[in-house]
């Protein structure tokens, strides 16, 4: 997936040392975009923030590409720059961690109280999708709700439920423990449940 045109490669200023390949924004973004995006997603609250941080990292790296000495992999260098951007981001928002709610020990503070009891009652939600219109609407609402999940939860949920990846492989792919995955998926499912309920599906059935 190369976004942009190939000819434009020639427009970038030729550098004495580096080969053509490392000198094109398209190639950089195409090759390392997903890697940086996933790295960012694992740390910050949502996809928009992650995209912004990836953009900042790419821009900074591009401006400073003359300082890349080629001793490490380009990917390692880019990730290091992104990590600094993420640290700056947290410093500016005055928090050490934005999300990772699925990772903290008690963690579920907004869903359960300290005794482990639901904070808010569980409302009605019916997902008997009978008509094509209902299925269509379900898709639409689900999409919105998945996008509203914190990045690390959306990632775990997508791999497990949308791509049907076995749990062990999900753990490997994001580099977390099995227990940690269980907590993330639990939280993601509950947040989705209440999001679906809040957005039309629950209400509509109750009104019938």
């Amino acid at each position, binding site marked *: *997936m190369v*976004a*942009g045109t190939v000819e*434009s490669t020639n*427009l970038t200023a030729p550098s004495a040392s580096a080969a053509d390949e490392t000198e094109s*924004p*398209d190639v*950089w*973004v195409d090759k390392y*975009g*997903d890697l*940086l*995006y*996933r790295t960012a997603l694992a740390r910050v609250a949502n*996809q928009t923030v992650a*995209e912004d941080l*990836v*953009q900042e990292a*790419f*821009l900074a790296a*591009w*401006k400073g590409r003359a300082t890349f000495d080629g001793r490490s992999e380009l990917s390692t260098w880019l990730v290091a720059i992104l990590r600094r951007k993420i640290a700056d981001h947290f410093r500016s928002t005055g928090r050490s961690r934005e999300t990772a709610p699925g990772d903290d020990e008690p963690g*579920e503070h907004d869903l359960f109280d300290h*005794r*482990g*009891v*639901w904070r808010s*009652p*569980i409302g*009605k*939600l*019916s*997902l008997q*999708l009978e008509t094509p219109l209902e299925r269509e609407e*379900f*898709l639409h609402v*689900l*999409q919105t709700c*998945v*996008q509203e999940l914190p*990045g690390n939860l959306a*990632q775990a949920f*997508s*791999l497990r*439920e*949308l*791509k*049907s990846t076995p*749990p062990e492989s999900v753990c490997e792919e994001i580099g977390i423990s099995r227990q940690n*995955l*269980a*907590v993330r*998926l*639990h939280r993601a*499912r*509950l947040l*989705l*449940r209440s999001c*679906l*309920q809040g957005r039309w599906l629950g209400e509509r059935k109750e009104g019938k």
Partner: protein
Amino acid sequence: MIGKQVRLILHCNCEKASLLTSESLDRPLSFGERWATRLHHLVCSHCLRAARQVRQMHRAIARLPRSVRYMMSLHSCHLSIGARKRIVEQMRRS
């Protein structure tokens, strides 16, 4: 071992029961875990309702066509095409 199972059953609160319900979608539960959730659901209607809804949601998602699910997953695992274009443009301009 048995002590552990009994403790699990006796100390099951909503949060634990709900976590186990979610876990049951990813792995088979142990004997103690199954009974802990079952017994908890007997006394807690909220958890029973939540568990049914979570399982129903899981099934509804699983029934979606593979291609649809894949498209939906793209945005949470891959940098979007729009973002790619924007970043490349910015890099060129700088």
